[in-house]
């Protein structure tokens, strides 16, 4: 599905923003979709599970995007695709007390790459990525501060085919 044609389960446009918290999102071409050429509406995603969607987050917006304590898994394509966001994927470390996601804040598991971030100024902390057929984190033309991430696979440039 081309990004321009995708439909999101929740779509943000024209300055729309706010917060998504404590929900599970399934279906649609993207769980969260943002379209805005101006940085008018910041979005924070917290304690949310996005799964069995086309993409998890498709953020074609200049607005800031922050993702904390969330999981994206079993997506058909890239778990997170963000451009040209001036945003962040931030994990504030916190133990959940459960097995495989213990000490893991932002879990992305999918058939595509974990994150494709284009033209970003971003901050990535404590992201865990696993079980991708594509790549882990791919950043192009960005300024990134990455630490404490664990990627199970190397970056795959084929994920640029979007």
């Amino acid at each position: 599905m081309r990004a321009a044609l995708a439909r999101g389960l929740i779509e943000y446009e024209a300055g729309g923003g706010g917060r998504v918290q404590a929900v599970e999102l399934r279906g649609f071409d993207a769980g969260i979709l943002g379209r805005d050429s101006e940085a008018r509406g910041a979005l924070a995603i917290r304690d949310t599970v996005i799964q069995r969607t086309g993409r998890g987050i498709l953020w074609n917006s200049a607005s800031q995007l922050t993702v904390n304590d969330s999981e994206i898994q079993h997506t058909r394509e890239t778990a997170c695709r963000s451009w040209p966001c001036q945003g962040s994927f931030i994990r504030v470390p916190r133990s959940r007390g459960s097995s495989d996601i213990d000490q893991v804040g932002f879990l992305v598991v999918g058939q595509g790459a974990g994150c494709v971030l284009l033209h970003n100024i971003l901050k990535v902390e404590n992201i865990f990525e696993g079980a991708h057929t594509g790549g882990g984190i791919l950043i192009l033309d960005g300024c990134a501060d990455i630490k404490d991430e664990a990627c199970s696979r190397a970056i795959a440039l084929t994920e640029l085919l979007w």
Partner: protein
Amino acid sequence: MRTPSWFALAESIQAAIDGVANGGSIVIKPGTYLLQSSLIVSGKHVAIIGSGARGRQRTELVGPEPGVGAGRAGARSHRV
């Protein structure tokens, strides 16, 4: 029972989003909600808050399979 002024029940999630003021919140009770159309947040900030993303008391928002051709907002959501 009187409904507090700060609290309103909406017939659909989209209606709640449309009706809430900028900076407001909508709270979705536990359950599975089937969506035929995208939920659109435009021109304001809204907090969409469920009861949890995991466990029996979670709030699930479920749409069509990817690529099926979901529509824009308009259709009601159904809780099942």
